[in-house]
């Protein structure tokens, strides 16, 4: 056990360093953990050998995988079901377009331009199709657009895009057998049972120091994760969908969500993101940096192809002036081009399942990180739809 505790000390030390960096430099903890993981592997690997971090140890893989599952669940639980029901038509059109075209476009770029094999190209398409709900949400809050119908539609659309990503990740690489049918059937059944059962169960037995709620949720997530893997799928797919169906119940229980966040950020996600970072090969990235630039440009380009016409259509239909409709559509499109967590989850899935190699993984993670920063900066600098700031004074629909 001495080796295990020593390794755990090293990882938690890195996690602490990453958290301090995120506080000092005001960057997302996920980002600082990925960077710390990459740098640690580079330095420790050079000094003491690549295996010292023990990224392939089963308990590190378990904690890392659990981190991805619980984080994805919590992300799904942030959905606002009331808004989603109100705006589902526009949100579905924008969200699906925002997923499907970049997915197909970036896969095509990987396949024909970069000459990746078929499986690796599909994986690249998935990693590049994501939209960061958090980036869009933060910008909406900053501008006060979260209360406008425009902001609500956009946020709901982000959930649809991410749902497309996790569904694609969960189903494209799985062989379609009777196991897939069993998995989908159980998942759909749980979609009906959990929203009914969970609040009743929590009301009857919850609110005690024994943390029954956390055990119940982890049971559901691990159980469905195991079923997903048995069917050749991916555990984050059921986690996100369970999060979405429980958004109206668990998502509204702030005390429970806070306790889950403590578990997630305090122990689980550092293992996930540091591991994700430690698997990045800096030499490969530096050898051919144009590959990651190609992915970044393709992602933004195909998001424009997908989202711009749709948003322009809705904006014009809602009676916006031509100039305003154009600005608003550009802004929406750039925000929908952002991505961080799901992109890194898809990339790590590809690497650990042997779909992509270390160099391909490094290009994808670099492009994912850049896509979380660059489009938002351009959007805020040039395409801020200022007329919408006035809307929130009059309309809090």
């Amino acid at each position, binding site marked *: 056990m001495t080796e295990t505790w020593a390794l755990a000390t090293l990882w938690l030390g890195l996690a602490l360093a990453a958290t301090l960096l995120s506080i000092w*430099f005001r960057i997302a*903890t*996920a980002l600082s953990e990925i960077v710390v993981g990459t740098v640690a592997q580079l330095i420790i690997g050079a000094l003491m050998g690549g295996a010292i971090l023990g990224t392939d140890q089963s308990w590190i893989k378990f904690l890392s995988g659990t981190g991805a599952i619980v984080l994805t669940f919590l992300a799904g639980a942030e959905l606002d079901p009331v808004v989603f029901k109100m705006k589902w038509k526009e949100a579905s059109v924008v969200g699906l377009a925002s997923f499907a075209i970049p997915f197909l476009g970036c896969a095509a770029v990987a396949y024909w331009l970069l000459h990746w094999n078929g499986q690796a190209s599909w994986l690249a398409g998935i990693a590049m199709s994501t939209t960061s709900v958090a980036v869009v949400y933060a910008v909406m809050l*900053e501008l006060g657009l979260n209360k406008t119908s425009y902001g609500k539609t956009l946020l709901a659309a982000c959930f649809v895009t991410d749902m497309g990503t996790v569904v694609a990740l969960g189903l494209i690489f799985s062989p379609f057998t009777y196991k897939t049918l069993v998995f989908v059937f159980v998942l759909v059944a749980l979609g009906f049972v959990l929203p009914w059962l969970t609040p009743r169960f929590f009301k009857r037995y919850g609110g005690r120091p024994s943390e029954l709620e956390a055990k119940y949720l982890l049971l559901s997530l691990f159980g469905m994760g195991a079923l997903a893997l048995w069917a050749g799928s991916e555990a984050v797919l059921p986690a996100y969908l369970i999060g979405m169906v429980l958004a109206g119940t668990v998502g509204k229980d702030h005390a429970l969500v806070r306790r889950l966040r403590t578990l997630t950020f305090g122990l689980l996600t550092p293992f996930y993101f540091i591991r994700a970072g430690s698997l990045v090969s800096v030499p490969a990235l530096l050898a051919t940096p144009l590959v990651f630039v190609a992915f970044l440009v393709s992602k933004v380009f195909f998001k424009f192809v997908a989202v711009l016409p749709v948003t322009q259509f809705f904006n014009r239909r809602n009676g916006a002036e031509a100039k305003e409709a154009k600005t608003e559509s550009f802004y929406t499109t750039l925000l929908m081009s952002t991505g961080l967590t799901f992109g890194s989850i898809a990339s790590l899935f590809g690497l650990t399942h042997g779909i992509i190699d270390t160099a391909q993984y490094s290009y994808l993670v670099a492009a994912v990180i850049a896509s979380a920063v660059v489009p938002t900066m351009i959007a805020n600098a040039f395409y801020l739809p200022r007329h919408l700031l006035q809307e929130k*004074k009059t309309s809090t629909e």
Partner: protein
Amino acid sequence: MFSKIMVAYDTSEQAERAFDAGVDLAQKYSAELIVLSVISPPEPPGMVETEAILENGQMFFEAHYAKLREKVASSGVKPRFEVRVGHPAEQIIHLANQEDASVIVMGHRGKNIIQRWLLGSISKRVLSYAHCSVLIVR
């Protein structure tokens, strides 16, 4: 002269002094007092973490607001508290415009050196872009 006073409050020592000055002005001019605090999300905002930071920030400021309410209970001034999200200088200027504030009262220095280096001097930015008078309390 001042009908609406806006205090930028980040819980630092300087912000406490700015709040006291704001209360003093509000008493003298029988003015409305708005206290603004700003939560800045990390860059890029991370999934789930952003929501957690916003919730924690809201609770953090609410706890401080309770103390401020107690502090001014006998003064007759009833401050209105606002928490916004974004870059502090931008949000201070934005709310001052929205509320048509007559004066912005703020501390000279708030956060630590690294944050000041990254965000720039908030008071300098507010001085440059605010539509109204700005009182920097040292």
